[in-house]
């Protein structure tokens, strides 16, 4: 947006010096920055828990098919919407990282205080996944290409792929095989068998089926490819939502 430049004054200015102007803007920036962290902790967290929450809550749900496919592409639209607002109006390529960090803060706070501190699940059963590397790559792609299209294709696809790589060190210990009454299962499965939840029937129906699912193998690569392509698609949807919200800047309507 262009500045007022040589236009005549429309009102008496509140600031009398350039230093005052800078101080006013700086205080506004600081307050808004903190506000945005709390806002995205709320919005992105509730959005995440109600779209892929079950996969994020428990290690046994963190499988090699649904988790690594659903989480990246369903979590893409909200950062993409924020990305459009921040980049189109403020030239800030920070949305992906900001939302991912906000989400990690919110989920870790919850897992420790509530899942562990109230429902008494062990922390190594309820740790949250991270999207921070995905967000960094998305933002870097935007900063380097300065293009929504290339960011969608390259950054969006990378977002889908990197999710599993970023979380690989976290999930690996729980994919070790173990013997349970003569049946082979992963440690994550074993945790789930010991902590029966109301979600256990759905876990058995959705996750604990199929023959190639438990320890990885080629379904991982197929899932990653699907996650990458789907993330490109949902990036576009999120971008459109962000565009729609920026259009509300000029939307005022008369009082009835």
């Amino acid at each position, binding site marked *: *947006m*262009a*500045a*007022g430049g040589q*236009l005549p*004054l*429309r*009102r*008496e*200015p*509140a*600031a009398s010096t350039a230093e005052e*102007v800078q101080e*006013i*803007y700086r*205080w*506004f920036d600081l307050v808004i920055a903190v506000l945005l962290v*709390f*806002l995205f*902790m*709320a*919005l992105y*967290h*509730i*959005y995440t*828990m*109600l*779209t*892929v*929450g*079950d996969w994020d*809550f428990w290690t046994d749900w963190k499988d090699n098919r649904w988790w690594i496919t659903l989480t990246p592409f369903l979590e893409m639209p*909200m950062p993409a919407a924020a990305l459009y*607002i921040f980049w189109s*109006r403020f030239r800030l390529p920070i949305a992906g990282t900001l939302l991912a960090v906000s989400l990690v803060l*919110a989920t870790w*706070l*919850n897992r420790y*205080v*509530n899942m562990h501190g*109230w*429902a008494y699940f062990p922390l190594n059963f309820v740790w949250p996944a991270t999207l921070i590397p995905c967000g960094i790559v998305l933002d870097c792609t935007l900063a380097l290409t300065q293009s929504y299209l290339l960011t969608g294709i390259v950054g969006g696809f990378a977002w889908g792929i990197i999710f599993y790589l970023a979380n690989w060190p976290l999930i690996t210990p729980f994919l070790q095989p173990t013997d349970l009454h003569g049946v082979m299962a992963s440690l994550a499965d074993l945790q789930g068998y010991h902590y029966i*939840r*109301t*979600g256990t*029937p*759905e876990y058995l129906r959705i996750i604990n089926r199929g023959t190639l699912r438990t320890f990885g193998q080629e379904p991982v690569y197929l899932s990653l490819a699907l996650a990458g392509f789907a993330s490109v698609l949902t990036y576009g949807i999120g971008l459109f*939502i*962000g565009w729609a*919200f*920026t*259009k*509300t*800047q*000029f*939307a*005022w*309507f*008369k*009082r009835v």
Partner: protein
Amino acid sequence: METISFVERASRLGQGSSESALSDRQWLRRWIDPKVIVVGSGVVALVMIACRVYQQVYAWTAGIDSTSPEFQAYWMRLLYALFAIEAIAAAASWGAVWMTRPRDFSKLTTAEELRRFGRFVAIIFCYVFAVFWAGSFFAEQDASWHQTVVRDTSFTPSHIILFYFSFPVYIILGITAYLYGMTRLPRFAARHSLPWVIAVAGPFMLLPVVAYNEWAHSFWILEERFTAPVHYWFTFFAWSGFGLGGLLLQACDYLYELVTGKPQTFVGTGGPKEDPALEFEREVA
């Protein structure tokens, strides 16, 4: 000595007519009132932490069986008390903002308008902070409880705090912020801002969604999947928080105009030539 009523005195205070306060330009350094942010967010944090401690103490010991006498004593009484507190808080905050509203915008100085705008932003900060407790902290806590304990009532220890306390708290703060802008700032007095309406009404709609959610859970008492379709309306209305993105853009225009005295222009951006709010906000003067 002039005798004035309480309402009149409060109204004058609400107009911020203290010339000495405005003549000291130091206030510009912290024009978004930090006291409102600290006190408002501090009170919200204190009551939410108190609720969390109460849950820690009484949820497992008295909150499992809704037919038990201890459930009635520790949880249903708490629910009724919270309803009463919410009614009083809503009446007090909305009433105070409305009763102390200034009646005349014609003599409003830019400095005073900036000070009011700062207080408006500070109240929005408290609103967002309350939304965080409801949308993030207690929302996922609800998942942890209902993945562990099968419900036998809609008024479970997690629901009482989440749906019937933390939701109303942010609704009260959101409407307070909306009323403050509508009664103190000419721009928001003359027109309704669409993104601001979305940002207040959208999260408010989570409360009607609670009714739908609880109605549906009377069929499916288990929380077999937290990502179940019955919860999708919560997700839908979570997007309404992005209305604050549109409001932020409006706030940047407003701040620029207040600080520099010049109109914000949008030539070459696909927007209007000049900020449309500059015209209609004079209607109320």
